[in-house]
């Protein structure tokens, strides 16, 4: 019997993973498959985001279940840490090191030569805009600079999987925008970028997919629009901009699936809530054909992370 073609693992896979801290639940029965791209972990404090990140990077071991990162077990740090970089939440650094030395020293522990360490250190510092501060002690850095040097340290060895725990914390708006652009660039390059963040509108901008966590359980995962459409008990909000919203509203109120329709703003916006988006779109087409309604735009108004978060977690999880 011949073996099948070699499978190139491209997923971060959690198979029924649980982690308890004594009797306290970290995460429970998590099964996930994370494809390349930017994936955001969203959930309130204590929901298990950091635990999940620590599990996939081998800093914690699961109480139960199995994890594979691109086919490598986190119990094998010699292989895993070659392909994984982790920017942890801890704002702590070995004392007495400059930004350059900090990155260089841990690259040396990877076993790289001096020339390679030097080259990669300079490239990483340049990527996060810290070249000018390379020779200053990390202890003298501002919070934003410390965050950036941690990012540089995490990506200096060019990992395929980049795990970032609250990477935008402490960054000013300009640095935030630059960091987000970097994450998107890494995601577009086919890397796995796993980000946890409290800032939902930024998560929305950067994520190819999201994982919503609450009290140690995965509440939802996938592309945000897909997740939103799965939330059946919350009517979809759709914003229609057209020339005669009152005509449309009148037709909509005849339908059972329409919960609410409000004319907003300059009188050309109609915000509606429907339990059946597909039926609404069919109806809209009919109305356009029958009345000659001129529609400028139709867009879902609540398929962002913030809305989905509020629907799925908001009540029980409080604010992020």
């Amino acid at each position: 019997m011949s073996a099948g073609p070699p499978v190139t693992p491209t997923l971060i896979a959690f198979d029924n993973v649980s982690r308890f801290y004594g009797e306290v639940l970290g995460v429970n029965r998590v099964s996930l498959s994370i494809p390349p791209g930017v994936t955001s972990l969203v959930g309130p404090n204590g929901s298990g985001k950091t635990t999940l990140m620590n599990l996939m990077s081998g800093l914690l071991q699961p109480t139960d279940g199995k994890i594979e990162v691109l086919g490598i077990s986190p119990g094998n740090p010699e292989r895993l840490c070659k392909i994984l970089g982790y920017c942890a939440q801890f704002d702590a650094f070995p004392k007495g090191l400059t930004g350059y030395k900090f990155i260089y020293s841990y690259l040396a522990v990877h076993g790289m030569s001096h020339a390679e360490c030097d080259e990669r250190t300079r490239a990483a510092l340049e990527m996060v805009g810290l070249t000018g501060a390379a020779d200053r002690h990390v202890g003298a850095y501002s919070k934003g600079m410390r965050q950036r040097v941690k990012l540089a340290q995490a990506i200096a060895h060019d990992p395929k999987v980049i795990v970032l725990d609250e990477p935008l914390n402490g960054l000013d708006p300009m640095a935030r925008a630059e960091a987000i652009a970097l994450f998107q660039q890494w995601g577009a390059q086919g890397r796995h970028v796993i980000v946890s963040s409290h800032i939902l509108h930024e998560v929305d901008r950067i994520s190819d997919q999201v994982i919503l966590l609450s009290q140690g359980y995965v509440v939802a995962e996938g592309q945000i629009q897909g997740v939103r459409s799965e939330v059946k008990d919350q009517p979809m909000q759709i914003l229609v901009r057209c020339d005669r919203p009152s005509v449309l509203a009148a037709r909509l109120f005849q339908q059972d699936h329409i919960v609410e329709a409000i004319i907003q703003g300059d009188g050309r916006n109609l915000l509606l809530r429907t339990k059946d988006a597909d039926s609404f779109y069919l109806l809209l087409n009919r109305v356009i054909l029958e009345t000659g309604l001129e529609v400028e735009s139709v867009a879902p108004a609540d398929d962002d992370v913030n809305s989905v978060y509020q629907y799925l977690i908001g009540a029980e999880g409080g604010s992020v």
Partner: protein
Amino acid sequence: MNSLWMRQMAGVMRLELKRTAFSRRGWWIYCLAAGPVFISLLHWLVESQRHSTSHTVGEDSVIFAGMFLLFFLRGSLFFGCMGIFSNLFRGEMQEKTLHYYFLTPIRREFLVAGKYAAGLTVSLMLFVPSTALTFLLLGRHFGPAWTDYLVHGPGLSQLGSYVLVTALACVGYGAVFLVCGQITRNPMIAAAVVWVWEGINPFLPSLLKKVSVVFYLKSLCPVEVPVPPPFSIMAVETDPAAAWVAVPGLLAVALILLVYAAVSARQGEISYGE
């Protein structure tokens, strides 16, 4: 050994030497190492002024033996090694920086070995010269008689023995405190237990005496120091271990502890108590 592993261990050593050897936090360890040198320097200066003939070279060698046992083995070496080795892991846990190492592709066994080697280098750099200088300065006021004692008498051989015992103490206590720093949240408690255990060694039954570091170290000391009265009544006489038992025995104990430390590191997790 694989050249990648060697480079990785060298990387760990460089980082640890910077952390351990050249840190301001280690000032008290430098004081512990410099203390006996300072005392024998004072002894030399005072005795040189007094031109005292109240004691002999032989008596000074016994004084040194007592000082070595009480001050070095039970004091500066013990606490110095505690300060250096127990902080290799525990210090990083407290400073929340250990995860940086755990996120590098180094075998945890080599991480332990690299850290231990760095700690050993620092402790040897501090305490071997301290022992040697203290010994050399203690009898310096005897002038040519001391030189004669060193060159033609048993001086150099004694010095060699003390240096060997110092080095072995760093090896042994280093391994003990590395493990203490890894498995206990507060190495001070573990150190206190070890210190008391090593302290009551003369009064333990022969079999229990051998479950200690100091028993083997004392066996290798060139000059025997009797337990002073009234404690001598309680002391249990035991034949010292032969050098061929003491040296490999201590190295074997250190190796076993290091293997245990490596296994612990392999299964270790990062939990900073948050």
